[in-house]
């Protein structure tokens, strides 16, 4: 029997009862210790690990009933059997509701006491194993989730990289647009989830350009209306491509990122606040980065020129609330820039 490894603490103010229990439990191989009060029990628990407590309900000073919740809180792995007079069984039941594993009644039938102890130790051992198993399961699930998330992020990075490798003009565009979008989102005080959606949508917003004709995309000079229509399918194609891997909010942001705020965009079905907020933010970020980059049909605009262009199109192409948030960010950036220039 492995009972020798199990230490039991007998808590009772009556010496004769402690002795009786101790003798019986020792005879079947348990190692027992005694405590004469709640206070002594607590100090014993502090010094040593006990698998089980036999706790008298009625003791002078702090009663067993009062001690029970403390033990359950600080020593959740220690089982408790309440010892009570026959007349007090209702109290014992109350104790079990508060977390005691079992109760025994005075006068004791010592064989029943041993059975109760064994039953309780078996039960708590099993519960401990279940807790341990659940803990390792949760950890495994957590690890797997992280792994899947890492793979997902990798897949998205690969998609963005494939797209940017195809077109020398758009190298780094998606990443820069994501940075600008997130900055606008933060300026507007969006939640963490909204910011995350915005970031993914920004990184992926041009993935649909995979379906766009290279010749048209890299055409120097003005596009015909038909060519413009062709290029603009990329928003819808992009939304269709990423649909299986991202949530529908991200899909919607990509679908509508070329919508004009006033509804005047190509094939546009919704306008103003009906356009997803993320799409309205992405529209400003995308336009700014496109204007400040070299394109086949023109050289890059300066930051100031691009900011002016955004200001001009506020209310028509861009949502004024978002355009203003963006202009605020740019104004503070530029004032910092000017200070730096003065210092140098």
């Amino acid at each position, binding site marked *: 029997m492995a009972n020798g490894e199990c230490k039991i603490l007998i808590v009772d103010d009556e010496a004769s009862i402690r002795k009786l229990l101790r003798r019986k439990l020792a005879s079947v191989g348990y190692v027992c210790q005694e405590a004469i009060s709640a206070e002594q029990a607590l100090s014993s628990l502090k010094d040593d690990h006990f698998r089980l407590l036999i706790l008298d309900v009625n003791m002078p000073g702090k009663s067993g009933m009062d001690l029970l919740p403390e033990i359950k809180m600080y020593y959740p792995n220690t089982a408790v059997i309440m010892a009570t007079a026959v007349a007090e069984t209702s109290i014992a039941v109350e104790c079990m509701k508060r977390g005691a594993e079992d109760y025994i009644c005075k006068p004791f039938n010592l064989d029943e006491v041993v059975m109760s102890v064994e039953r309780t130790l078996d039960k708590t051992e099993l519960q401990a194993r279940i807790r341990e198993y659940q803990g390792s399961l949760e950890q495994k699930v957590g690890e797997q989730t992280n792994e899947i998330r890492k793979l997902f992020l990798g897949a998205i990075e690969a998609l963005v990289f494939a797209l940017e490798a195809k077109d020398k003009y758009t190298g780094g565009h998606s990443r820069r647009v994501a940075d600008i979008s997130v900055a606008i989102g933060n300026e507007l005080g969006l939640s963490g989830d909204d910011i995350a959606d915005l970031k993914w949508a920004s990184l992926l917003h041009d993935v649909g350009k995979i*379906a766009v004709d290279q010749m048209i995309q890299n055409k120097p000079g003005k596009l*015909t209306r*038909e060519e413009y229509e*062709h290029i603009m*399918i990329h928003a*819808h194609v992009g939304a269709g491509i990423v649909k299986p891997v991202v949530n529908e909010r991200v899909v919607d942001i990509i679908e509508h990122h070329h919508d004009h705020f006033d509804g005047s965009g190509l*094939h546009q079905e919704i306008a103003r606040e009906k356009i997803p907020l993320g799409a309205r933010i992405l529209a400003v970020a995308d336009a700014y980065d496109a204007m400040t980059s070299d394109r086949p049909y023109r050289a890059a605009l300066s930051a100031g020129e691009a900011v002016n262009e955004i200001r001009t199109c506020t209310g028509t192409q861009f949502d004024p609330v978002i355009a203003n948030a963006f202009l605020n960010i740019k104004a503070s950036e530029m004032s910092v820039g000017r200070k730096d220039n003065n210092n140098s």
Partner: protein
Amino acid sequence: MVATERKKVLVVDDEPGVRQLVSKILSREYTVVEAKDGEEAINVVRSQSPRIVIMDMMMPKMDGLTACYAIKKDPATRGIPVIMLTAIDQELNKKLSTTVMGANRYMTKPFNAQELLTTIRQLLDTV
């Protein structure tokens, strides 16, 4: 079939040879109108309301994918079935046409005349 009940179909391809061939196959049962690029196709769809469109993918001026998108985006014309008829036998293009752009069928050239007729009949029956 009585001549006045003939349904109108639009055949879009930049190669005159293909247009003629498809027209010949379809003209026994349908009234065929033709367009030589996506831009013309959209105009015909809007002005003549054909019952079905059979369209090439790679065309000058405006390609079939873009034209299909425009037809399916316009509430007035989105109910008209579009069959993409193309030489590009690629799963990606098929998926792009049907899943993303809303084309109703994807067929590759060279095609079987009977198969084309059956597909058209099926689509006209379900609309």
